[in-house]
């Protein structure tokens, strides 16, 4: 399975006959870590090719090498549109017709939409005057082609994330790119926006533009790409046609393991209610929210970006104050003035943005774990007790099976899955009654997700009430006892996974 399986496929023929990009023997070391190991990759003109693999498999490094952000180790062969290239720079890559939509967008928040889209016209060559009119014209043209209307003069940081994603796409299309890398371009798009992006990808492909598509949404990948290259741990697993490929087969190739899917919903209507929301509302965010979560129950909350699910979580966690309605925990009405009140009451919240909000990345694993329980490990003199601190850290590292070097290492050195376990440890140490998980598997490898859900189910079995927020419908379908659907700031549906198929549920939510 490590060698490329033969694929007598028209796309492969184009790749050999009129290649857009051909890479061979590409390796990259980062301070001793082998991010890429002798990888080969090729796609033809007009081909939509998916690059698949778990986080850290080397996808992003590969893109950065082709676009000149990183230099490969000596011995690499790079051929762009049939032209051998010895050393790539960002300007050269652009000159050869390569554009990228970066996963972290790489935009300029303080600059206008027009300038962001047309930014590449400002770079390279001699210093020169700026023609704002031409930049605006270029930006307007691209947005027109995309069929979206955005204010060209708005500062980027005033736009919602989804609009920024569109700007990033527009920027990649602004040059006359013949090869476009799209690194998770749909991560923050709604379904209809995703659909229009996929339509654009098809149109570009029809015009002969080659596209390398990276996405963790495997259904999307199989729908849009003709072939898929799978990487694992920096090595090439193989190149496969998407015809006949299934999601579970692709997952297997990416992780090297097999997973079973089964609905795990249970009936817990007889259990004691832990969280009861009644008529909860906050102007412009959500209204009339009533829901109950029982002891040991996992309630899935899904809906598109902008449906108000994260805002609802913020209100329950005391980060914002609702305008109306009540929050009851264990029968007691809560008046939350801050999230510290919520923590004290027994509510824990794992935010969606683990990198920026969930953890304090440069600080140690140990400090991140004890962050939420400082009063508990402080002795009589107001000093933190070292033994108590080591005890808490040791306990949770064992309990959640977090594999680390030393507790004093920065938390940023951990993989996404282990980082998420540290976030969980931090909150479980507070002995919460209710755990809110907001998109807990974003940036976590497919293989490690199962481990996270095993922990979550285990916690529920111990009587913890859990609100699982996710825009991945399968995730809530397979793991929750009930699924709530939120749209436009309201709860619009409740489903029992045992009485509906996944396809039906997805249909209702995306409709």
């Amino acid at each position, binding site marked *: 399975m490590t060698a490329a399986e033969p694929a007598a496929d028209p796309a492969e023929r184009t790749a050999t006959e009129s290649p857009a990009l051909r890479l061979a023997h590409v390796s990259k070391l980062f301070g001793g870590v082998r991010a890429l190991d002798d990888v080969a990759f090729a796609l033809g003109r007009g081909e939509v090719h998916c690059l698949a693999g778990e986080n850290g498999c080397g996808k992003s490094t590969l893109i950065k090498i082709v676009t000149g952000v*990183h230099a490969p180790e000596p011995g690499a062969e790079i051929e762009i549109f049939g032209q051998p290239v010895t050393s790539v*720079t*960002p300007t050269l890559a652009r000159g050869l017709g390569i554009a*990228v939509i970066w996963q972290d967008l*790489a935009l*300029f*928040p*303080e600059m206008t939409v027009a300038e962001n889209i047309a930014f590449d016209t400002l*770079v390279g060559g001699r210093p*020169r005057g700026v023609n704002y009119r031409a930049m605006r014209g270029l930006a307007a043209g691209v947005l027109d082609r995309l069929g979206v209307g955005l204010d060209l003069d708005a500062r980027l940081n005033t736009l919602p994330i989804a609009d920024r994603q569109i700007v990033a796409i527009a920027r990649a299309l602004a040059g006359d790119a013949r090869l476009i890398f799209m690194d998770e371009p749909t991560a923050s798009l709604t379904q209809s926006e995703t659909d229009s992006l996929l339509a654009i990808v098809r149109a570009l492909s029809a015009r002969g533009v080659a596209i390398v598509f990276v996405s963790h949404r495997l259904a999307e990948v199989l729908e849009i790409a003709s072939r898929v290259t799978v990487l694992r741990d920096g090595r090439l697993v193989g190149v496969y046609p998407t015809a006949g490929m299934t999601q579970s087969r692709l997952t297997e190739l990416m992780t090297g393991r097999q997973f079973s899917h089964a609905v795990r919903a249970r009936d817990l209507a007889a259990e004691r209610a832990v969280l009861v929301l009644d008529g909860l509302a906050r102007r412009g965010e959500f209204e009339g929210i009533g829901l109950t979560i029982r002891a040991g129950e996992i309630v899935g909350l899904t809906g598109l970006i902008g449906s108000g699910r994260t805002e609802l979580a913020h209100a329950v966690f005391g980060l914002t104050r609702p305008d109306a309605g009540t929050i009851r925990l264990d029968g007691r009405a809560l008046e939350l003035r801050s999230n510290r009140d919520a923590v004290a009451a027994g509510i824990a919240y794992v935010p969606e943005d683990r990198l920026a909000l969930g953890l304090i990345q440069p600080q140690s694993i140990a400090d991140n774990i004890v962050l939420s329980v400082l009063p508990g490990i402080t002795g009589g003199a107001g000093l933190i007790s070292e033994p108590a601190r080591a005890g808490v850290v040791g306990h949770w590292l064992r309990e959640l099976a977090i594999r680390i070097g030393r507790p004093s290492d920065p938390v940023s050195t951990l993989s996404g899955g282990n980082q998420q376990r540290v976030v969980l440890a931090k909150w479980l140490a507070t002995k919460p009654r209710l755990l809110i998980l907001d998109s807990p598997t974003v940036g976590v490898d497919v293989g490690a997700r199962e481990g996270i859900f095993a922990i979550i189910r285990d916690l529920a079995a111990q009587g913890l009430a859990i609100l699982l927020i996710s825009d991945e419908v399968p995730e809530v379908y397979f793991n929750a006892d009930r699924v709530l659907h939120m749209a436009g700031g309201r709860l619009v549906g409740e489903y029992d996974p045992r009485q509906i198929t996944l396809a039906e549920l997805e249909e209702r939510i995306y409709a």
Partner: protein
Amino acid sequence: MRNLLRSHPTEARLLVVLVALCAGLGIGSDQFLTLGNAASLLNNSSVNLIWAVGLLVVLIAGGIDISFAVAASVVQYLCVYAFAGLGGGNWLIGFLVAGALGAGLGFVNAGLIHGFRVISIVITIATFNAYFGLLMFFTSGRFLYDLPGWWSRRIIIVEHQSADGRWAELTLPVAVMLVCVIATWALINRTSTGRQLYAFGDNPEGARRAGVKVATMQFIAFGWCGMMAGIGGLMQVNITREVVPNALIGRELDVLAAVVLGGARLGGGRGSVLGCVLGVMLVAITQNGLNLLGVSPYAFKMIVGATILIAISTASLRFGRAPVRGHGTARKGH
């Protein structure tokens, strides 16, 4: 006005405050709204404005420069010897030498910052101490009065006699200041290099991926700031007619406060020439107005400090906190 309010809210609010202040002072003192006073305000603020636009470029590019005022003193001393060596010199030589020396001192900062990957505040605090210590050591704190005639002669660019017989005069530093302000505006708004400076300050990693050359950005930003420091130093001598080694130390923080008040963000990516000028003028006009109202000069700084503190604290004049430091794009590297 509506456009300005939307695209540059800080500048627009500052403008409103400034107009209100001027109106108030105009009512409070019959001398404030005279040509003579306006001219002296401009004459006295010109050096600060030259420095401010230089510092603005560094702030936009995401850096900070603490050393520029001391660098200006170093340039002044080196100029005295250079002019003597060049047979007295003239204005053309003066601008070339002062600008080049200043830019050179800026390049030293840029080279250290880029070459050894050290954040600018560390390097410029180090060079601040190094420049100042060496200057005081080698000059032994000596004042210099024996300057070339062209340098210390007052040059009047525009003059106007008003009805009451008083003269309003604009001197050379004002003209030089205008050139510096316009040049800086053109650099950061009208050239590809300037837009790259903004982008680099805004998102260094994103700029790098787009092909912006990081070293070039550092050298242009600190070189420009150094050049403005040198030219400002040259003009300072034209005003005071003496070279004093420790006359300018401390001014860097006053200028920094004014520029940040004008909406430039510590951390990069935001700031405009208009805001920068407004920030400097708000401080200058406050002092000038207090003077005309007969307030004790000892109280000036206190009131200026309080004004800035109140300005920061009013919700309507909100200055965004720089993104949390130590996280994400602030660090270079992969």
